[in-house]
């Protein structure tokens, strides 16, 4: 196993415990509520996996875990892909 296999498993475990997260408003939401501009917030014109709950699954814990796992894998793939695309090719040319 390479180090990043283990690291990715740790990330997926973090996603699995995500239903334990506090559902209280975050710092910005709290300020928006206290200062009376929270109502200005507009909903997105479309929804994919809105609010980290996978649509069409009744059990919210399962839907949250699924959203977390999908997102974690997507981010790993996208960031590796972009890093691979933009990385320096100098070594290869020299070699």
């Amino acid at each position, binding site marked *: 196993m390479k180090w990043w296999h283990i690291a990715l498993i740790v990330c997926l475990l*973090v996603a699995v415990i995500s239903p334990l997260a506090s559902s209280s408003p975050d710092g910005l939401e709290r300020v928006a509520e206290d200062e009376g501009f929270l109502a200005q917030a507009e909903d997105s014109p479309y929804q994919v996996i809105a609010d980290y709950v996978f649509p069409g699954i009744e059990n919210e814990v399962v839907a949250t875990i699924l959203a977390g796992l999908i997102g974690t894998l997507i981010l790993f793939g996208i960031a590796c892909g972009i890093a691979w695309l933009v990385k320096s090719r100098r070594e290869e040319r020299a070699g």
Partner: protein
Amino acid sequence: MHIPDGFLNVATVAATYVVSTGGVSYAVKEANKKLKEKHVPLMGVLAAFIFAAQMLNFPIVGGTSGHLIGAALAAILLGPWAAVLIMSCVLIAQSLIFQDGGLLALGANIFNMGIIASFSAYFIYRLATSVLGDGKRGRLIAGFIGAWGSVVVASVACAIELALSGASPLAVVLPAMIGLHAIIGIGEALITGAALSLVLAARADLWQLQKV
């Protein structure tokens, strides 16, 4: 600290999109010069970890919660431009797929939590290690301070954008944002410190990669 659509006015949306587009383009240029094959899996793991950890809101005071930003961890391990790329991936995916952070506010969110948080963390960390030394202890304490500072500085940027947009006067929104994020920043510092200790214990060489 993900700004939804509706809070920012057109001028602030436009200005932050211009600055963030420029910042991300420059980050790509820097990565093109310095990023090596060895950086690739670490970029992926950091993006995955930051996404997952951002879902874990922790309670602070008075029915309010906070979550990791993660820019400090990325900037300290890989350098500020690499951190800007990682944070942009996370913030774009959160906005497009998870409807967290508005589409129009994406420029501001990348500016605050990508560019501002990464660079403030990196500079505070560098400044702190120059005082505390580059040993394990010095680096961890510097990481802790850098992580805390990155959240507070990002909240200042966010407050200024809200004030410029007319959402709330600066004299009100600035102390409110700083006050809450000074507490949320402690969570950021603890998580960043724990992650950095884990890297030191398991794969200290990953921290020695060239900074981008």
